[in-house]
């Protein structure tokens, strides 16, 4: 089959490129890129099931990934001393009150038979009242919690469980958020949905940045536990020293390569599991139905399919996958930094991956994730090399040359934009097009 050849060709190209990086730069860099490629592929799988198979535009990747990262903190960090006794209770109560008030107002909105103006008034009043009650309960206890050793903790902390648990939990968190967001905004048409999800994901980031009691905000959470051994422990092991001697690597390099390889191993297992489940789902009648809804909503509706529910379902599944990937990313980084979540890097880059790889094809998303992430990282050295080639005729003191070399890093944004535009223009189906069934 033509497609199979193409898949094998593209993946071996990718392998060769990574090997080249390994040989010319260093194996450490190559493995770092490889790990992030794996995570990117999982994220783009999540978008692919939404966009490629159901036609939903989700620009909220950033928010879901951040929620996945939050799960890392909630699960694996040690709980802060007496934070729970001092203020945790009131925080929980306050949040429950706020949620109840929202549910109550929605119920009133749906079930009662007043005319619209009274309804607006009552539900708005209940929500506002609930909000102020929450603030009244929350504010003092937040202050107390944030005052506990603010330089080190100052937040609630987590449950002190192994960090691997946080991956599925991150998926669950993202899924819950997706349920709420989907309920709110899936009724909207595509353009509005895109803007709404983008807005909501920004709100999530703002919450994480500013609610210090939950995530330490801009102070970041460092030193998350690891699912793999530390480099220093490895360096004292006999077998590591032996391998290092045999391959003629320095001990430090060898140990960090082993750590990265074990991360890759975990990520590959996750990727394969998700990939397999998605393939099975998409081959089943359920997947056929999703594609039918994507291609023609009206006729699918006429066949008795509940479009709203299916859309919600697929929105939740895709977002959960992104949440898992987000949790994995934070685990790999070892720290949670809300500031680092930017729409350009998360949302839009993942979209480019899906579109370049081929929307509707899971292999396509994976190769898209690999390729785009590879170039996102490598565009910088390549751009620098390219510019120094161009400017090699100019004198060293030339202002133009120095300016060009200084700003070489920003070439990658231009490069990504060009890749996206060229793909959409000349190969709108992507590198590996959707299989015709």
């Amino acid at each position, binding site marked *: 089959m033509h497609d199979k050849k193409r898949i094998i060709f593209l993946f071996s190209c990718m392998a060769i490129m990574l090997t080249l990086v390994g040989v010319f730069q260093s194996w450490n860099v190559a493995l770092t890129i490889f790990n992030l490629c794996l995570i990117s592929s999982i994220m783009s799988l999540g978008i692919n099931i939404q966009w490629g198979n159901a036609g939903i535009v989700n620009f909220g990747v950033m928010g879901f990934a951040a929620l996945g990262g939050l799960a890392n903190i909630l699960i694996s960090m040690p709980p802060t001393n007496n934070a729970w006794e001092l203020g945790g209770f009131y925080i929980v109560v306050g949040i429950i009150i706020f949620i109840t008030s929202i549910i109550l107002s929605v119920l009133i909105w749906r079930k009662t038979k007043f005319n619209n103006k009274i309804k607006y008034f009552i539900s708005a009043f209940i929500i506002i009242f609930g909000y102020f009650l929450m603030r009244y309960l929350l504010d003092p206890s937040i202050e107390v919690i944030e005052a506990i050793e603010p330089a080190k903790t100052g937040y609630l902390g987590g449950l002190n469980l192994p960090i691997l648990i946080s991956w599925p939990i991150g998926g669950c968190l993202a899924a819950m958020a997706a349920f709420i967001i989907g309920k709110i905004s899936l009724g*909207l048409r*595509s353009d509005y949905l895109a803007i709404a999800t983008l*807005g909501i994901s*920004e*709100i999530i980031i703002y919450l994480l940045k*500013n609610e210090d009691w939950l995530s330490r905000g801009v102070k970041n959470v460092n030193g998350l536990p690891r699912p793999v051994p530390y480099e220093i422990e490895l360096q004292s092991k006999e077998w590591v020293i032996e391998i290092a001697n045999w391959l003629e690597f320095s001990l430090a390099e060898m140990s960090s390569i082993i750590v990265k390889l074990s991360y890759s191993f975990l990520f590959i297992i996750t990727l394969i599991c998700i990939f397999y489940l998605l393939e099975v789902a998409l081959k089943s009648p359920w997947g056929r139905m999703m594609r039918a809804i994507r291609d023609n909503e009206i006729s699918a509706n006429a066949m008795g399919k509940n479009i709203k529910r299916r859309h919600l379902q697929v929105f939740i599944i895709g977002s959960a996958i992104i949440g898992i990937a987000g949790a994995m990313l934070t685990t790999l980084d070892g720290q949670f930094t809300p500031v680092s979540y930017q729409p350009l890097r998360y949302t839009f880059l993942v979209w480019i991956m899906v579109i370049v790889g081929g929307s509707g094809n899971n292999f396509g998303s994976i190769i898209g994730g690999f390729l785009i992430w590879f170039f996102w990282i490598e565009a910088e050295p390549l751009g620098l090399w390219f510019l120094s080639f161009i400017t090699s005729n100019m004198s060293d003191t030339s202002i133009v040359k120095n300016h060009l070399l200084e700003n070489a890093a920003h070439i*990658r944004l*231009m490069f*990504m934009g*060009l890749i996206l535009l060229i793909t959409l223009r000349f190969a709108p189906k992507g590198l590996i097009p959707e299989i015709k069934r």
Partner: protein
Amino acid sequence: MIPGVTYGSQLALGALGITTIYTVLRFSNFAHGEFMSFGAMFTILITWFFTDIGIKLNIIPTALLALPIAVVITIIYCLLIDKFVFKFYRQQKSKSVITLIVSIGVMFFTSGLIRFIIGPADQSFSDGERFILKAKTFKNFTGLNEGLAIKTTQGITVVMTLFLVVLLFWFLNKTKTGKSMRAFSDNEELALLSGINPERVVFITWIIAGTLACVAGTLYGLDKSYKPFTYLQLVLPIFAAAIVGGVGNPIGAIIGGFVISFSELIVTFAYKKIFFYMLPNQLVPDGLLQILSTDYKIAVSFIILVLVLLIKPTGIYKGKII
């Protein structure tokens, strides 16, 4: 109050640009923020050039002198982008989502270009008198306790916005070209039948959008300071303004801009001062008494956006539903 008016005018100008593009070309242009940034960047470059050769306006910023040239450059850039990128999809009659994704590609490209030319650093290019009305002068003048200051840039923003909005409405309602544009946006096929040249309408739309983007970007840069990445964050409030007012309605876009900026102020305003003057001393509460803390300032516009989408997707003034 005055920052609200200024920010509102900037948002309104941006939202007008987005609305114009949406009604005529029928897609949501995510690259608009970057067009704004592009315009502002050229204003800065030309301002530097002017100050270098010694041209300087004394009271108002030199940037105003550079603005017309930057507007022309932005328009040319918009037209080039349209010719090489958007035209293809228009002729294909692609879905609006596809064009939206294309505009994201343009956004990436433009932001890369901007950072490549001017670098990611912060640039301040406002010169001339800083204040029209200084806080102290105001105090002496009115005898009130609290100072009131109006920055020059704020004054310029409001005046420029008024000028542009009046010009735009005059153009849309009185001139023949403007009327043909409105006809085109109402019903494309009927407009084609009555002999309106679509390419000309598109051409003029980009001219309007480019002008608005460049002016809005420059004003924002003058008022705050120019940082390439802030413009990406501006896109969403602008969309929020356009949607709150009702997409496709120019008046709505302006109203939406002010609604967003004022609600940001109202929600994050520290009410302590009001209580301080109204209540006797013992009753004044301790905290700042904000409804939301100031950190959430930008998030407010997103919350409003989501609320409007939920309750009334057509916006305040009935626009088109996407």
